[in-house]
Every structure is written in structure tokens, then in C-alpha cells.
């Protein structure tokens, strides 16, 4: 049993606005607000801690505004946290927080060590560059230099994500939402990142298309043993993909545990409401 986490996060806090001494005490589930009454700053997430182990899928569930996407955006460095540390075992052997990375290291983290799939394919793809070009771009950033190898790898990942190879040289702008999402997944996974971040990856899709995308992610995860954090407001997505689950509300983690335990024996009032609403 491998018991060194691939990712270890402590004290992650993100506040929008100047912030004041009262921000953390005056917000959160107990106050049912994430806007600080003293200074008006918004506490997106506060003191979030998590460990992710190799080959594991961790779910983060919560309603809009719970802070779950902020956690992912901080990890992918789309957002800079106010405080906290995050150690990725493949970055400086887990001895330097990713939030202390230099500009060059940040590029390495985003292009090589981590892969992000956004809710909106527009955020993860350049829709006016071909599907193959999108993947090639990411491989180039990861120092792939041989054009033939890049094309072969792009074709391989488009095949794995069930995008017809004949669409490889087409622009994703003219793809369906489901196919755009599959290209985005291929792009995120093509250079075998240590950490995969999935943010509401099926939220904008039709139900039947959602099923296809989820099955795809589940199958690739099983086959390749990816380490994944999946954020969703949809309990069925969490149930299908996650080994362990964290529940967030008003920027705080209110509960965490084995996914079946969180869904069948929820402890926190908010989780009980969430589970009974979905049933």
C-alpha cells in the first residue's frame, strides 16, 4: 500500500477583496454567509486541507459558491491563494509548495505536471486551433519536439477519448459540446500529468452525452490509474467517480469520508439536505 500522498494541501484560503481580521470568524456555514460583514470581502475558501493518494479519485461536492471550484483554480494556479501550502510529490519531491513556484516552474506545473478540464471547453481549448493542434500545443509546452511523435500522440489520445480521427484537423469551434469536452480531456491527459483536475466537466452537457463523457473518464482513470480531483455539484458524478468525498459549504469543508459513507450516512446538516434533495 503506497501511503505517500501525491498531493497534500494545508490551510488553503482565498479571499476576494482586502480582507480584515474578522473575515474568517464571521463567515462560513455557521453564519451561512461568505461575505465578511465587517469589510465586505468574499471568502471563497478558508483553511481547506486535503490529501490525494496515487491512483485515487477525490470528489469535492457542494452548491454554487461553496468554494469547490476556487480550490481547483488555486491548485491549477488560475487563482493565487491568500495563504496555504500545496505539495505535489512530483514537484521538488514534494518539498516546495506549488504556490511558491517561480514563473518558469509555474509553466512546468501547468503544462506538464497537472492537467485541468474546465466546465466550459472554451477555457481549456483554443477553439480556433484544430483539435490535433490543441493537443500538440500542450505537448510542445511539455518539450515534445518531434512533429511526427506529437501527431501520433494527439491521434492516440483523440482515439482514447473517442473523437473520430478524421476530425483531428478540424476546429473544435464547430464540434458539439460533448465532443469539445472530449477534446479538452484528451488535451489535459495527453502528457500523462501526475494530477488531473476536473471542474464540473459534465455540467453543460445533455444527459445522454454526460453519461458518455463520465464513462470515458472513469475508464481512462481505471486503466491508467490517474490521480484525480473531481469537483461537481452533481452527486451522481461523485458517486460514479470518487473513492473519497469532501463536502464544502460557504468556503469550508464541512464533512469528508468514503463516498458511500458520505452519501448513505451523511453527518452534517448540509450534506443531509444535499443527499435528501437528490434522492
Amino acid at each position, binding site marked *: 500500500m503506497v501511503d505517500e500522498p501525491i498531493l497534500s494541501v494545508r490551510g488553503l484560503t482565498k479571499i476576494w477583496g482586502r480582507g480584515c481580521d474578522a473575515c474568517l470568524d464571521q463567515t462560513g456555514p455557521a453564519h451561512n454567509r461568505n461575505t465578511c460583514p465587517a469589510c465586505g470581502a468574499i471568502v471563497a475558501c478558508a483553511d481547506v486541507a486535503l490529501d490525494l493518494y496515487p491512483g485515487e479519485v477525490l470528489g469535492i461536492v457542494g452548491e454554487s459558491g461553496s468554494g469547490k471550484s476556487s480550490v481547483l483554480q488555486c491548485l491549477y494556479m488560475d487563482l493565487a491563494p491568500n495563504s496555504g501550502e500545496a505539495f505535489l510529490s512530483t514537484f521538488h519531491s514534494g518539498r516546495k509548495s506549488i504556490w511558491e513556484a517561480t514563473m518558469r516552474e509555474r509553466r512546468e506545473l501547468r503544462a506538464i505536471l497537472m492537467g485541468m478540464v474546465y466546465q466550459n471547453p472554451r477555457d481549456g481549448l483554443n477553439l480556433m486551433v484544430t483539435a490535433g493542434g490543441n493537443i500538440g500545443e500542450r505537448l510542445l509546452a511539455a518539450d515534445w519536439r518531434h512533429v511526427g511523435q506529437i501527431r501520433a500522440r494527439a491521434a492516440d489520445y483523440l482515439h482514447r477519448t473517442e473523437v473520430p480521427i478524421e476530425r483531428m484537423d478540424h476546429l473544435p469551434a464547430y464540434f458539439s459540446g460533448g465532443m469539445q469536452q472530449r477534446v479538452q480531456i484528451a488535451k489535459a491527459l495527453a502528457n500523462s500529468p501526475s494530477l488531473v483536475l476536473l471542474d464540473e466537466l459534465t455540467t453543460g452537457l445533455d444527459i445522454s452525452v454526460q453519461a458518455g463523457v463520465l464513462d470515458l473518464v472513469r475508464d481512462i482513470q481505471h486503466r491508467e490509474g490517474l490521480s484525480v480531483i473531481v469537483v461537481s455539484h452533481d452527486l451522481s458524478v461523485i458517486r460514479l467517480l470518487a473513492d*473519497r468525498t469532501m463536502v464544502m459549504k460557504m468556503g469550508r469543508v464541512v464533512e469528508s469520508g468514503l463516498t458511500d*459513507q458520505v452519501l448513505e*450516512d451523511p453527518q452534517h446538516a448540509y450534506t443531509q439536505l444535499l443527499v435528501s434533495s437528490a434522492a
Partner: protein
Amino acid sequence: MEANTAPLLHIQDLSKRITLHILDGAIVEPFSGVSFDVAEGEFVAIVGASGSGKSSVIKTLHRTYLATAGNAAYRTAGGALIDLASAPDRTIIELRRTEIRLVSQFLKVEPRVPAIDIVARSLVRNGATVESAREAAAGLLGRLDVPQKLWASYPALFSGGEQQRINIARALVARPRLLLADEPTSALDSRNTARTIETLLAARSHGMTMIGVFHDLDLIEQIADRVVVMNNGRIEAVGRVGEVSIPRVQPTQEVAARV
């Protein structure tokens, strides 16, 4: 052989209380003060009227429910003692993968996966090749008499009895040391029940231990070494089959009570 005299599972004062915040903090107590030991290779049946807490005990041992108090010391294949009530989530995940399996009353499986792969997946996760895992799965499905024409279909479309056998096959294929079973044969006819019993007894001959909720008296006599009788969340009696009186409960009443 000192190891064999120590129980496989030592359950002490296990209790479960649920606070329903969405019902103004109402408190439900499925069971409390549950204590019993299970020896390696033993089959223990938990019996009792509906609402007596049987299923909740099984779920708590599987950690689908969190215990409120007490412990359940499980002795692993490697000889370590692990409290199933308080061990870290990661330890429980590992035990579920390698040693402890649950057969719930109703099949809960990933949608859109063929029956044979649902069974085979348990082995693939433990490192077997897809081919050898499917072979083992096919063998077990055959022994449980699941029609071969169903193997490639999705179990969501199956009858209750077919689903139940998929559920059993999925748990047994990985040869668990401890099987937790919640009415695993409630939807089976007598012929399929007999097949299932044969399969469970064969697993016992390979050293498997089982704790299961059962209703059928004949079945209990055939399969159980000992019986734990529960009433209203408490243990009323523990003893060998024939030594304790087993309350008769119709499975249909049980289902009706839940609906």
C-alpha cells in the same frame, strides 16, 4: 497455531446513532451495545424483525455507516488488528479491495457496464489481466446459473434475482476473507438459492468467513454455524443454530416495512 484461536472479528459495544438535522435534530438509534466475536471460517447469521438493526450492523462493519461508539477489531491476513469503526478511510478502502466485501440487498453498480465486467472489475483492480478476470467471472456466473446471454448486458435491466446473483458473484470473485451479506438471497427462488448456498459453502472451504442477515430458517440451518438474534437494536441472544430460538419473519413484511 495461536493465530487461529484469536477471533477474526471482535465486536465490542458497537453503537450507531443518527441525528437527522433535516428533521429538527430527531435522533434515531438503529442499534447499540452490540458485542460478538466471529471466528475465522465461521458463518454467522444475524436475524431479527425488521427495524431490529441487522442491516445497520452490516453497514457499520463495512463502514458505509460510521459507528457512534464501540469498536470492531478485525484481524487482517497479515495479522494486524484494525478497528473497522475508527480506521482511516484509506485503510478501509484497502481492506475493501483486498479482504472485506459487501453484498448489499439491492445491486448498486456503475451504470452502463456489462454484467461480466462488473464482476471481472474486482479482479482487474487487484492487478489481474482483463482476460483472466473475465474468465474467472464467467466461471462464477456459470456456477450461479446466470444465463450466458445476459453476461454482456447491463444489470440495470435484469430481474431482482439476476441482479442479486451478479452482486454475489462480484463480491466472491476476489475471494474475500470476510463477506458481509445483507439478505443476499431474498429475491432468489429455491433452485437459485441452493446454487448460491453451494457457492458460499465452497468459498468457506477456501477459508472465507461470513456475517450475513438472513430470514429463511431452513437456509440458516443449512449455512450458519451461529446465530445472533437482534431485537429493537439490541442483541437478544447469540448461540448455535438450534440452541437459540429464531423469530420467524416473512421477507415480504420486511420489504413492505421499508417501502
